[in-house]
């Protein structure tokens, strides 16, 4: 592969995205509030509109008293529709109309800005998470990450829109009301200002109490679904082991927990204490107003002023239904961004080198005293592994499950770095080579093939999106899968996976081989622990693999005697250690474990393995 394409890849994709984001936002709280930094103009404009519309609506309510005062004068004077009355009515109507327009615009712009923020934060989250090494995916459930990326980002969005917008609207209403009231009577205004300060503090605390229970309810429901889903998926196993009662009890316990939390939430939110403050203030204002209206001193109110004050307070009371909900939303959003942030700032044990070297992949590869434990665990799964893979050789890895074979493959792909010791390519340590470069030279074909639910074409060209039709066809042919693809109604455009056609294990494997052929690696890693298939599938697979291994260094995990016999080097592993290294003949001569293993492979007889071994125990029928 040309070096230039590698260079290009590097510049296109910045793997340092995690660093970039964490440097830019520094903390979860900042990340959350960065919404306003991302769309300053839109939010700014929306804010102006919000203030305007809040002022106008509040003012309209206040005008009710004024207009009624005039009406009273008119009635007493015996006139109707005096110019003052009419002009006030017109003013009110104009106010309402302008506030209608500005509030609508405010909501639209604010929503648009916030949906943009949601889009960008979701993308940011995904890109950072995607960039984490496999160590991250080993310890985090992908369902949970998905739910974070989708649902919790949604919640963050909802905290800003409608949550924070409504909260601001309430605040402005309170402030503007207070200002208007001070104009009528400073006592009422000051009392209101003070009590609302108290109100907000209590409301915030209230929200802090209810919020977590709501979150808990959501978790409970998730658990409940998980329990139920698992039971129905495994219903045969449950029935076969006669374990119904156990499963039902498990479900009921969780359901009861949910019910308890739901009750708790209901109890808590039933008594919204802060509402008492507004009630007392309104009732007090009513009494005070009555006193002012009836008092004969100079500063007395007109009846219209009393109506205005009452009207303003009544509309303020309506905020009681909004504020707590919005506060809870805001808190949930802040909390979620905390959780997302901690995922994004995962301390990755696999770091990219600062000055990446490319290494010459045409040279030998050395394992030097490699020890390895999966990140975050104590268990050492590879112990003192040392061997050399000469360039162009075919290496076979053999061993029981848990012997460490597949871990060796993962280290070669640099999905992880060794805990101790080093892997070297032409004397260059693997951890000083950028993962992008490692992986463009090394390709793995796994045992459990993962294909994307996309077209066959997209899957085959996964490693080389720009591949021509001719290349794709040739790869498919060499992988023994083209014949099959041609029989499909949509040929290469057939969608596979969840919503489309499902392929058999053998077909999947050959698609993966075609994919690997197109990527044309220097080093091939092949996990060939195939289970039994019918003869045709078997043959096709074998042709495909031979084609893939042709002319390149390969490491194959295998149980296949022919592969073992043909291998240049066989590495026999057991419990994370190398038992022996050598050719088939050598190992058959000297290694008891190898002899035992070979004897348990199918058709060992026909290969003449038995005749070479005289240390047989048991034997097969």
């Amino acid at each position, binding site marked *: 592969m040309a070096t230039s394409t590698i260079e290009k890849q590097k510049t296109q994709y910045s793997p340092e995205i995690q660093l970039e984001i964490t440097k830019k936002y520094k903390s979860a709280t900042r990340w959350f509030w960065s919404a306003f930094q991302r769309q300053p103009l839109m939010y700014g404009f929306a804010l102006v509109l919000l203030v305007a519309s809040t002022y106008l609506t509040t003012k309209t309510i206040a005008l*009710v008293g004024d207009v009624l005062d005039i*009406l*009273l004068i*008119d*009635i007493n004077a015996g006139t*109707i529709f005096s110019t003052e009355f009419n002009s006030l009515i017109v003013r*009110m*109507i104009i106010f*309402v*109309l302008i*506030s*209608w327009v500005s509030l609508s615009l405010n909501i639209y712009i604010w*929503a648009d800005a916030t*949906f943009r923020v*949601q889009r960008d934060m*979701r993308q940011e989250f995904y890109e950072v998470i*995607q960039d984490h090494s496999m160590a991250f*995916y080993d310890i985090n459930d*992908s369902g949970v990450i*998905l739910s974070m990326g*989708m649902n919790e980002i949604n919640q963050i969005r909802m905290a800003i829109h409608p949550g924070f917008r409504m909260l601001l609207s309430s605040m402005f209403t309170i402030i503007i009301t207070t200002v208007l009231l001070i104009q009528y009577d400073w006592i009422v205004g000051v009392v209101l200002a003070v009590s609302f300060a108290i109100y907000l503090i209590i409301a915030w605390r209230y929200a802090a109490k209810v919020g977590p229970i709501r979150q808990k*309810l959501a978790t409970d429901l998730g658990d*409940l679904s998980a329990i139920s889903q698992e*039971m129905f998926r495994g219903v*045969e*196993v449950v029935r076969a*082991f*006669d374990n119904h009662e156990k499963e039902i009890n498990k479900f009921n316990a969780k*359901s*009861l927990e949910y*019910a308890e939390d739901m*009750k708790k939430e209901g*109890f808590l939110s039933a008594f919204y204490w802060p509402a008492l403050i507004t*009630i007392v203030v309104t009732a007090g204002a009513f009494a005070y107003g*009555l006193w002012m209206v009836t*008092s004969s001193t100079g500063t007395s109110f007109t*009846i219209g002023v009393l*109506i205005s004050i009452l009207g303003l307070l009544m509309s303020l009371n309506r905020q009681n239904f909004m504020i707590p909900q919005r506060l809870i939303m805001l808190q949930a959003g802040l909390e979620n961004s905390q959780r997302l942030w901690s995922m994004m700032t995962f301390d990755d044990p696999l770091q990219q080198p600062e000055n990446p070297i490319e290494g010459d992949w045409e040279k030998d590869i050395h394992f030097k005293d490699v020890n390895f434990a*999966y990140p975050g*665990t104590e268990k050492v799964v590879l112990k003192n592994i040392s061997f050399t893979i000469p360039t162009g050789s075919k290496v076979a890895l053999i061993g029981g*499950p848990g012997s460490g074979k597949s871990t060796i493959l993962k280290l070669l792909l640099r*999905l992880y770095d060794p805990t101790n010791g080093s892997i070297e390519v032409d004397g260059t340590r693997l951890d000083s080579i950028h993962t992008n470069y490692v992986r463009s030279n090394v390709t793995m074909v796994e*045992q459990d093939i993962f294909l994307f*639910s996309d077209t066959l074409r997209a899957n085959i060209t*996964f490693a080389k999106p720009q591949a021509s039709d001719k290349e794709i066809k040739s790869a498919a042919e060499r992988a*023994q899968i083209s014949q*099959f693809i041609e029989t499909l109604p*949509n040929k290469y455009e057939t969608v596979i996976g*969840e919503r*489309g*056609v499902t392929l058999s294990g053998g077909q999947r494997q050959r698609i993966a081989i075609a994919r690997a052929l197109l990527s044309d690696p220097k080093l091939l890693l092949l996990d060939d*622990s*195939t*289970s*039994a298939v019918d003869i045709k599938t078997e043959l096709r697979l074998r042709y495909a693999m031979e084609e893939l291994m042709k002319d390149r260094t390969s490491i194959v995990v295998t*149980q296949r005697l022919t592969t073992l016999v043909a291998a240049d080097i066989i590495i026999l592993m057991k419990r994370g250690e190398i038992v022996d290294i050598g050719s088939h003949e050598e190992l058959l001569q000297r290694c008891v474990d190898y002899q035992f293993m070979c004897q348990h492979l199918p*058709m060992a007889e*026909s290969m003449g393995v038995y005749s070479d071994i005289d240390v047989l125990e048991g034997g*097969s*029928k």
Partner: protein
Amino acid sequence: MAHGQRRGPGRALGLEKYERARSTKILVSNLWVYLQKYIWTIIVVGLLSILYSVTALINPLIIRHGLNAIQGGEVNFMSLLPLSIIFFALTITGWIISSFSTRIMAKMNSKMLHEVRADVYHKLSYSDMAYLKREQSGNITARVTADTGELATGVQLSTGIVSHLLLIIGSFIILLLTNWMIALISLCAIPIAFAMSRVLSYFGRKIILRVRRAFGVVSGKMAEGLTGIAVAKSFNREEELATELRELNQQHYKYSKQFGMLMMFVMPTMTSLSYLLFTVIIYFSGWINQTTTIPLGDIYLAVNLSQQFLFPIVMLSMVFPQLEAAFGAMDRIIDVFEAKSAVEDSDSARPLQEDDDSVHFENLTFAYEKNINVLEDVSFFAQPGEMIAIVGHTGAGKTTLMSSLLTRFYDVQEGEIRIGSQDIRDVTQSSLRNAIGLVTQEPFLFTGSVMENILYGAPKSTEKDVKQISKKINADEFIDALPNGYDTMIVEGGKKLSSGQRQIITIARMMLADPRILVLDEATSRLDAYTESLIQAAQRELFRGRTTFVIAHRLSTIKDADRIIVLEEGKLVENGTHDELMKEDGIYADLYNTYYVHQGLEEIDIKPEELEPEELEEEHIQPMKVPMGHMTTGGLSPEMLAHIKENAKGKSPKEIKTMLKQIKERTGKEAPNEVKMILLQIANGKETDTVSMHTLGDMKKKEKKKMHGD
């Protein structure tokens, strides 16, 4: 962690148009079964909401009284003071009442929800296996969690309806009594408010469906990116995946923006409307004053009430769709209650005797669906301790015979299965299943530690037993290598284990349960040859002398068997030892030569060109898995798909093509390939049931409806 199902904004708009199969009366009477326990709570809450409405209605009257008194002049503060005290007392009372009724409702509602949930779950746990297999686990879970939740929400909201209605009617009556002309003006606002909510739900439904679909697509993409992360990393494809996601994300944003555009009208319009209304009322009262004088207090009252009754109308228009959703949920819940139950123990059922482990299959005929026999007149027997291999092509009925009938997940239509001298229908299921050890094709693990999983069938065993068994089958080596050994948690069905490792654990689980009769359904198909041979050796040692049925895939297993049963299209066609059957040169010999013999074959002597072409097997079309959000087949709703499919029955391919054209016209885009494929299959008369799973429920419902209609 909040990964439960979230309610989209669409709920309130009554997005899901769902056609119920039952009348409201039947639904309510079913719901009543649960509600009647709380009859007193309901009465109390009802009374409280009446009381609440009364306080809300009296309050403005008090203010009016005060204002009118002032306007009349010659009042002193002391005479008005009681008014403000009453006002205060009433507001506080209103607050206390609504708080208490919320509290009482919360208690009742949470209890009721738990009861319904427990019942639904219980019923489903003991439902007919065919029903559970037909529905996707996600759909069934939706019955248990989402539908019950929806029902509870409906019940809670319905109490609000009473007080809303009371407020609307009460406000209007008082308005009418105060001044009938003003009351009539206020009425004008109702159609506007109503039209608003109609417009909202009409456009809202469309937009929200789009938003949801886009959300589902983003979610699907992200899910795939996360599960396929290792592949993406191996091929340096992160950048491309991120770009693909970005495009979908942008699409979602676009639709969300449309939604925002819609929402921008609702709230401001309603608020402005109410303000306009009172401005008009004030203006109008100026006009009325020409002839008769209305006191200011009355005008204030009219202004106040006109607002008080506009908002409940909006609230009600939001509540009704949710109520409808609750009824729909109840409908589906009743479906569950009425679903067929699993086989039950007969009254005279006795525990399985332990003296005789021979198994007799006599003239078995079985069909999952009427008249489509999966097994026909199958008879054979296994002597105690015999090992029988069952072979045959895919779909021959092997799994049905062993995993479904011997375990009595289903009852046979004809014939009988006996263990010893007992018909399995005469023994308790519990004793039967304790006697039989089943390892299913698909290795299924539960969330929990490896230890717990192995202990699943034998909870009384000790950890030492588990380790012993694991050592015997060579599982300890890989279990030890897991991060926490036996305490390693299995998550997501065991994603960190290879399918072979999962299979080993299920085998250990079965072995520990120590059954008398073994059923191994391709139990070692995912193991490598070496591990399998070790496990088989262990099996031979541990289960020597137990009656064993193996659905075999490997030569070595078949060779071990005492006898081989060959099934072909549900019929038993051959029965004998390997040598006997080879001599017969029938189906077994043929199978042996294509499937088994080559497993040791090491020399390739056939050229690739000589191989026959493969075909897409019918069963390889999978049921749709709906990940998150609501993805449907190629953008078609299940209802629509069901409709199309029903119409497609018996049509010629040409007619199908015309149908496809119609779909294109109606949806504005090419019918998705999967739909085409389904249709062509139906036309050929061989619809695979897997695809129709998803829609089967809906189709059934339609049929039921038709019957009701008749």
